[in-house]
């Protein structure tokens, strides 16, 4: 019964923290849904803990202890999450690089011949790389 109480306190506390974070907009969109789902799952798992349901599920998939089942699921979940975040980090870094260069390009003095008007610049001065980094629905891809 003590395990049950501890599990309940932790999972309900986590659910509350998630809801608070969403309300204060520190979690958004997909991340909000994801963590809300995880929190609810944790609460459900805590409820099922004393009923022996988890042990039953573990046995049917060939795992002896319910705790091993939960641990395995947690590891898989975390690996997928980290992979996803590292993809997003790379994307964010590409955008940051492009923006940094763009700011520098806006501030730098053009060469003399460009100032003299010999050069016709393209219509869109904010011509950004046409990679999917700047894939925006309102801007048609070239």
């Amino acid at each position, binding site marked *: 019964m003590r395990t049950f109480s501890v599990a309940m306190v932790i999972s309900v506390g986590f659910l509350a923290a998630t809801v608070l974070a969403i309300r204060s907009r520190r979690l958004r969109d997909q991340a909000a849904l994801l963590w809300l789902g995880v929190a609810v799952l944790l609460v459900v798992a805590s409820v099922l803990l004393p009923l022996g349901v988890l042990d039953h599920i573990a046995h049917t998939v060939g795992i002896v202890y319910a705790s091993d089942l939960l641990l395995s699921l947690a590891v898989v979940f975390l690996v997928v999450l*980290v992979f996803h*975040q*590292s993809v997003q*980090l*790379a994307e964010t*870094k*590409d955008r*940051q*690089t492009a923006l*940094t*260069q763009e*700011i*520098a*390009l806006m*501030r*730098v*003095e*053009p*060469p003399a*011949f*460009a100032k003299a008007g010999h*050069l016709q*610049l393209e219509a869109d001065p904010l*011509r950004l*790389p*046409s*990679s999917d980094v700047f894939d925006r629905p309102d801007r048609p891809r070239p």
Partner: protein
Amino acid sequence: MREFTDEVNVAVEGEADQWDTDRLGEDDCEGVDVDPETDVLDAEPLADEDSSSPVVQRRLCVIIPAYNEAPAIGQVVRNVRAAMPTAHVLVVDDGSRDTTAHEAALNGATVMQLPLNLGIGGAVQAGYRYAQRYDFDIAIQVDGDGQHDPREAQRILEPIERGEADLVVGSRWLGRGAYVAPKGRRIGMRILAAMVTRGTAGTITDSTSGFRAVGRRGIALFAEKYPTDFPEVETLVLAARQGLRVQEVGVRMDQRVAGESSLAGVKSAYYMLRVCMMLLVDGLRRRGRG
């Protein structure tokens, strides 16, 4: 491929700071066998098959990436301007914390200041984006630390001006000047040269040289995408995959005065390993994508 760190905070002294440590080849590589047939120095002098077209002044942009090079950058800019008087000299200041930008501007360069430190790859790419935006015909990269002799630039520019190549690399190994290389780098440099040579279908002996020039196709390609991990090596493979004609010419380079660290052997082996891994990763990438 990247460390999972807070890039913005680390940028100042973190991974983006690849300026010296990661650019082995510049001062410490052992020569690789040179196939005399590919030595452009021995090629016939000025071919004038293009003599029908009128002589037009080509717009040349010198891209000088610089990070905390205040003591050297002024002299570099003066040397470059003396060697290439008609060229537009652009110093890309990669978020230096010293007076690099000021020194460069004082000596007559146009200075592009990056608000964040991007590392050599991001800085050079900014230069190429400038060259593309202002419609330059040729861009030549010269390092901001003075190890490249701008008087040698004409050798690199020639194959592009003649329309024979899209990307020309200045090599220390092709017979100009006595470059004394420390031992222990031979095997690594050979493997690297072999890998790059396979990718470029031509002999590249000095794949880490940052002394290079490109024509319009190269400017367009590098403005669009430019590798950040080992840009000197990776750009060669990228350019070749995109069908650019890559050539190498011999140039004289100043040897850096800095003494050699006892860790250099280990470091260069580690560098080699990382470059090889990176080339493998590049090989997995779909063509036509960054």
